[in-house]
């Protein structure tokens, strides 16, 4: 019997698990995919927003500001790539300038530090590659970029190290409640719990409905992004947002990633299926036009890939956080559209408070592991490289040429508290295969290392989710 079962291990579930694992509780995390952070957490723009976008007085506004304040120390402690960068919203006509003024006023009310209106001249001085047609903008110095899946991985790994139990490939199919105990039926067995935290992202409406909940049925909005080669990154120094005239959409952004790539996007369109991550040629062409209007010199021959991300939208214009009025001891952390990533650590703390108010006894552990450090070969100085290879020769074999990732790092990642079971799970943890050749060269090598370390046949290794098999059989076995 679990004290708390968390449904979903994206950034929200991971953050909640991390906070809750400080306490003497039996915590279970149920994740439907075969890796954490596989939903919206994997496919977003990785931006920690300054907070001027949020309507003042909402939970979004409060947790956005609080969340980004907590993020810096959290990322440092848990070794997550984080970089503070200013945000700039740019306007190309008077109507957009009016919107900028609205955002400015919101920012002031929300307490965004250092926010100010910025002139055309200052924009072009800071960002000479922005189109000269810009007429003015908004400037906020306290935004940041983060590695979103590493954030979720770090938080959930730490939770697991502190005793939380994570179940991957475990999809919740039904929940019933009897004698104040939840019975959760999943594709991987049954679980009992006193409290449930619903952090199921795109599927949180369905989980809520399983306990008879009502009130927020999802529609889904998606956005596509372009990822450019690192050689395009020198074109911008901050997070440049074009001024969106659509509500619920923050505008197309051109910005660096923590890995040194340039990213641009998203666009904004509705989808029916929360797992429909297909990109579309015409939409992408339209997006390209919009991007070039803001930074005209981006070289689209330098694209490495495109991806789409989906998040839910409800009829409620705020996060949906709290004990469900339909079901006691069922805590919603739902309605997570932007700024979900930014707000996550603050939402996790609120989740703890809500559970306490709902009757859960919380007493702090005496010992809590609160740091995490990875070995990233390419970032070490020469002396450290020499010593590391002497100690463990696997750090001397570079597997991914484009990103200089060694076999030592890949093997280490495979033996961490949350075991990656797919090629993409390795990519996300080690950066191998993220570079120019997109794993063309290192793919087979990573594949064989993963099979070896997991003790399975290479035929059993998947590319990403369950079912994404790579190989169909050995050669020379045609007739059999």
């Amino acid at each position, binding site marked *: 019997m679990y004290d708390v079962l968390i449904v979903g291990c994206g950034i929200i579930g991971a953050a909640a698990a991390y906070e809750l694992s400080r306490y003497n509780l039996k915590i279970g995390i149920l994740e439907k995919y075969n890796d954490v952070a596989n939903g919206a957490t994997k496919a977003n723009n990785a931006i920690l927003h300054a907070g001027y976008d949020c309507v003042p007085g909402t939970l979004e506004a409060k947790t956005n500001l609080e969340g980004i304040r907590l993020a810096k120390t959290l990322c440092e402690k848990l070794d997550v790539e984080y970089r503070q960068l200013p945000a700039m919203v740019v306007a190309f006509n008077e109507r957009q300038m009016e919107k900028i003024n609205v955002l400015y006023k919101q920012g002031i009310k929300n307490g965004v530090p250092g926010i100010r209106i910025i002139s055309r001249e200052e924009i072009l001085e800071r960002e000479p590659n922005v189109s000269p047609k810009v007429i003015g903008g908004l400037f906020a110095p306290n935004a940041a970029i983060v590695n979103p899946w590493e954030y979720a991985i770090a938080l959930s790994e730490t939770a697991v190290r502190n005793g939380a139990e994570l179940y991957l490939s475990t999809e919740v199919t039904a929940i019933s409640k009897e004698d104040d105990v939840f019975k959760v039926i999943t594709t991987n067995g049954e679980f009992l719990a006193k409290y449930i935290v619903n952090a199921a992202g795109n599927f949180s409406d369905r989980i809520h409905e399983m306990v008879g909940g009502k009130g927020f049925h999802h529609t889904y909005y998606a956005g596509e992004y372009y990822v450019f080669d690192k050689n395009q990154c020198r074109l911008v120094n901050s997070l440049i947002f074009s001024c969106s005239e659509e509500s619920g959409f923050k505008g197309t952004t051109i910005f660096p990633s923590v890995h040194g790539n340039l990213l641009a996007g998203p666009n904004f369109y509705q989808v029916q299926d929360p797992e429909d991550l297909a990109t579309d*040629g015409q939409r992408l062409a339209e997006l390209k036009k919009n991007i070039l209007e803001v930074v005209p010199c981006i070289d689209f021959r330098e694209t490495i890939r495109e*991806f789409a991300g989906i998040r839910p939208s409800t009829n409620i214009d705020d996060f949906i956080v709290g004990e469900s009025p339909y079901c006691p001891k069922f805590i919603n952390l739902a309605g997570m559209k932007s700024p979900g990533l930014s707000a996550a650590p603050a939402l996790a703390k609120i989740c703890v408070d809500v559970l306490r108010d709902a009757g859960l006894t919380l007493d702090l552990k005496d010992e809590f592991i609160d740091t995490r450090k990875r070995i990233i070969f390419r970032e070490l100085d020469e002396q450290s490289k020499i010593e590391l290879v*002497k100690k463990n020769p696997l750090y001397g*074999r570079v597997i991914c040429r484009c990103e200089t990732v060694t076999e030592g790092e890949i093997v280490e990642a495979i033996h961490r508290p949350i075991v990656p079971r797919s090629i993409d799970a390795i990519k996300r943890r080690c950066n191998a295969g993220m570079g120019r050749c*997109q794993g063309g*060269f290192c793919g*087979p090598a990573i594949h*064989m290392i993963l099979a070896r370390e997991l003790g399975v046949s290479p035929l059993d290794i998947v590319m990403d989710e369950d079912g994404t098999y790579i190989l*169909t059989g050995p*050669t020379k076995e045609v007739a059999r």
Partner: protein
Amino acid sequence: MKYDVIIIGGGPAGLAAACGACENGAKSVLIIERAKELGGILNQCIHNGFGLQYFKEELTGPEYAERFINLVKDLPVQISLDTMALEITRDRKVKCVSSTGGYQELEAGAIVLCMGCRERARGAISIPGDRPSGIFTAGTAQRYVNTEGYMVGKRIVILGSGDIGLIMARRMTLEGAKVLACVEIMPYSNGLTRNIVQCLQDFDIPLYLSHTITKIIGRTRVEKVIVSRVDESKKPIPGTEIEFECDTVLLSVGLIPENELTRAAEIEIDPATGGAVVYENLETSVPGIFAAGNVLHVHDLVDYVTEEGKRAGAAAAKYALGEHRSGKVLKVESGSGVVGPVPQLIRLENVAKSQDIFFRVRNIYQQANIRVLDGDNVLCTFKRNHMIPSEMERIRVPRTILNQAVSDRLVLSVESREEEQA
């Protein structure tokens, strides 16, 4: 540790560079190779067609590689396998790492860059659609099938009719898969006619010219692809969609020289070739650092790679022994119909009897003239009867002709002879 010549890469270019360096006086040569064996990409190219020019024999990739691996065994060449070069510096130091040798910093009298190239992957050419597994570049599939011994799919559509795609069409068929189609965006195939016949026609695999894959569909694994005809500007024509039910897509859509190390050392790169800008002796913009093979410009014949490797090795040895080049420089530029001439710079006093210039043409030419222009003046003309973009061309320009140049730039251009007559 100091070597006369350090060669980065032990594929055909690097092996040839080692031979060229030793033949020209280098006493200590080191090849740094990231794989556990020499041979580079040739090890997985188990098909025929290599060596027709160089050895006057038709060899498979591994056989061609083994010839040079055996030659190098008898030369003063040290080989560091399973070793990755991490950085090269402008003063010719090489930082590398291996599991057995640890992290090392080496010094070279001269360096030859022979890192080869990589394949263009899906995102770079933006095929819209789902993100299923089952999409491979042809070379990655080739590695799985030929070296690791695993099949990557049962029903296959190939995008790109370059030789790698054609070769894999045959390879997959011989291993029991069904290849449904080869789809090529241009109105002509990029591969050798011999491969069209022996890889597609032999197995009744249809070739769709002026077509491209416009969508990939599949939730977890590829389930189907949509192929459309394209117009002259390569845009898909609505209404021409053909659907193929398949589980695998092989991409053969271009090769890109692998110049991470080159860029990091701030060696000048030519955007037209994707490789370094080089002088007549294959020296890059940094003295003492040379380049050869696919890292310099993507070749179609390994025989040319060998020749180029040997010349670079020879020049590197000479540099290491104190022969440093300078002098008046002629720039070589592309005129109409021409792209990516190599070398891009010629130091006239270092050309002996003649200078070979390699380039590609932009179109198909049946009867054409290649002209070398100095301003308006035609210095010389070469007649060719059959030129296509997928076959690298070579002209040999005599020193006496180069001496006549008055300006500091030569322009190569191609005109079809019919235009001339018209």
